């Protein structure tokens, strides 16, 4: 399963890389911004996209909106990874068409499983 992850924090990207690579079936590509995520999602096929909610420039919500607005990428399931826990933010993510919202801080040992659960595979 090919997964595209966008997070502006380099440390978090390092941990995501390690945590998700514990699942041998996941092939993970990391980018550092919403803009980069859009470019990569249009260029190649991914099975799912994991977006950080708060990023400078295009934040996760706007990135998601644009992914869903583009017929080429609208079908790719999006999961949010966010430090915010307000119900409205989770609702916002789901309204935008995301399939789930995972919270930071996460347990790296179970993140892959949680992601699979959210994606239903």
């Amino acid at each position: 399963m090919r997964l595209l992850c966008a997070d502006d924090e380099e440390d978090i990207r390092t941990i995501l890389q390690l945590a998700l690579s514990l699942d041998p079936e996941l092939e993970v590509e990391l980018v550092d911004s919403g803009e980069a995520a859009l470019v990569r999602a249009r260029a190649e096929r991914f099975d799912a996209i994991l977006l950080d909610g708060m990023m400078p420039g295009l934040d996760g919500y706007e990135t998601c909106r644009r992914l869903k607005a583009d017929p080429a990428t609208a079908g790719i399931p999006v999961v949010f990874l966010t430090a915010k826990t307000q119900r409205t933010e989770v609702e916002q993510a789901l309204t935008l068409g995301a399939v789930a919202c995972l919270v930071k801080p996460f347990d790296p040992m179970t993140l892959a499983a949680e992601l699979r659960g959210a994606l239903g595979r």
Partner: protein
Amino acid sequence: MPAARDEERARLIALARYDILDTEPELAFDDLARLAALVCEAPMAQINFVDDTRTWSKASFGAPRITVPRASSLCALAIKRHEALVIEDVGADGRLSAYGRLDADIAIGFYAGVPFVTPDGHAIGVLCVADIRPRQLAPKQRDGLLALARLVESQLQLRASPARRERDESFTRLSSAASEGITILLEERVVEANNAFGRLFGYDLTEVAGRPLLDYIAPESREAVTRQLGLVSEKPHDVRGRRRDGATFDIEITIKRISYRDRPALGCVVRDISERKELDRIKSEFVSVVSHELRTPLTSIRGSLGLMEAGAVGELPPKARDLTRIARQNADRLIRLINDILDLEKIEAGKIQLQITAVDVADLVESTVAELRGMALLYKVSITTELGCREPVAGDRDRVVQILTNLLSNALKFSPEGGVVCVALATGAPGFLRFSVRDHGQGISTEQQARLFTRFEQLEAANTRRRGGTGLGLAISRSLVEQQGGRIGVESAPGQGSEFWFELPLVPAPSIRDAGAAADEPPGILVVEDDDAVARVVGIILARAGHSVTRAATLEEARSAVAARRPAVVLLDMKLPDGSGFDLVDHMSETPGLEQVPVVVLSGVEPTFDHRTRSDRVVEWLIKPFAERELLRALRDAMGNGPEPRSMTRRTA
């Protein structure tokens, strides 16, 4: 002309403050009338006051004192013009013929009147002279009449009775010491105000009186304040005030019914809360920063430690693994602490929305206990249950689980090894179900019990480290219980173990169902209300009266509810998140089978003309808050008269 009407209302209030209408003659005023006649060489002179319906003489020289309809009074004309009015030949002007009498018997030929004015500029009465024959008023006489009118003004100021002056002085003295704005309203207009009130809104105290209260309220808050004036709940409301320069600011306003000079009036206390609001804003901004800024580095720390501890990046030497575990456990604790602080903050700020439903308590206890079996094993404590009462409660299931989990995990942590913790369900206070968690720990002294439910209160600092708690669990539980209309407490003594309990309101049978219940049940009452608390209260009242209740929180839910099952009556909130209640009324009017369903409106505001005429399906209009019996009566009437359109009545409780 609303401006003229406003001015007239202000004038009448100014007049009322003098408390002079229908009082006995007074020598000072009689003398002034006599002087006016002498100065103007006129046979008749009067000091007349004009209220909303009549002209009334306080003093009269050369003619009887009068009370005549305002419409036929030359004095009322002088008041309207707000200046001296001299008519040399009343009969010559056909338009004035209706005015040409001092009373039914005395027709007049000549009239000269000078309005006297209050310090805040309202003409409340007229000093006038009159003659039977037409004549002229010499300039010197005119000057004399103007001077005497000024003396009437002074006399009015002096006249305020000693008792009332004392009363007013005590109001002034007392209220001037207050930092809150204090004002008295007659017909929603300011009649008295203290210095702080003027200061608050940037007005000179002499300019304050006579203005409608709404002049001091920002446009966006006027509807809310109008509603508050109508309900007089005596509960403080946070609204936006408006200063003289147009700037708006946060105020808290409390309105209370009082009596002012034997007239029903409203007392109103205004407090500047901009500072408090600013602090609130800073606090929630801080909380949101904490939420994000602390979580981001913690994600990296927790993530790195978790990967290292699990050996995901290679096997660690035993000592390094121990240290990594300690660091990871403490990162977890920090995360729990942040989550608890945020949770408590949200609960106390009223920012969480409770999803109140009928909760199956036995199932809830069983599943909560099952969740904590692992923890019980860890502490070598066993859990038993005693489910003495299994009736459903009205609560937010997730939040009830959170409370019970908190109490149960505390009990496990503080039980001795090999101990037993018992979770019980029993009947509580009338109408309530009691959840309790009993342990055989060391017990808690009475002094400690009092502090237990406050923030960061743990019995011993050492416990915090040993048990890994955040010190916020009980404070969160208390807030959650109270927000669901329940109570929480503890019974304990040192050496005797502890029993922590909370009580939540029972759902009386038949229970409240969510929209979309089975279609074969008899028609029930559909409650369309987006506010959970109101819906819950209404649901409980109706269920107690034996009605079957369905609830819809939005227009959309209401549409599907009426489609699924024709309700006997619809209780309808007008303001719904996705539209107006009238959209549902219109929808039902156009739907075959639903045209006849009576509607009872539950609203925070009075019906407007448009509301009243919009539909004959609305048979009642209840203003929130309403009393239980009022709701039931409205419902009974609506059901009894369901198919027949009735004229709409408005009731308040």
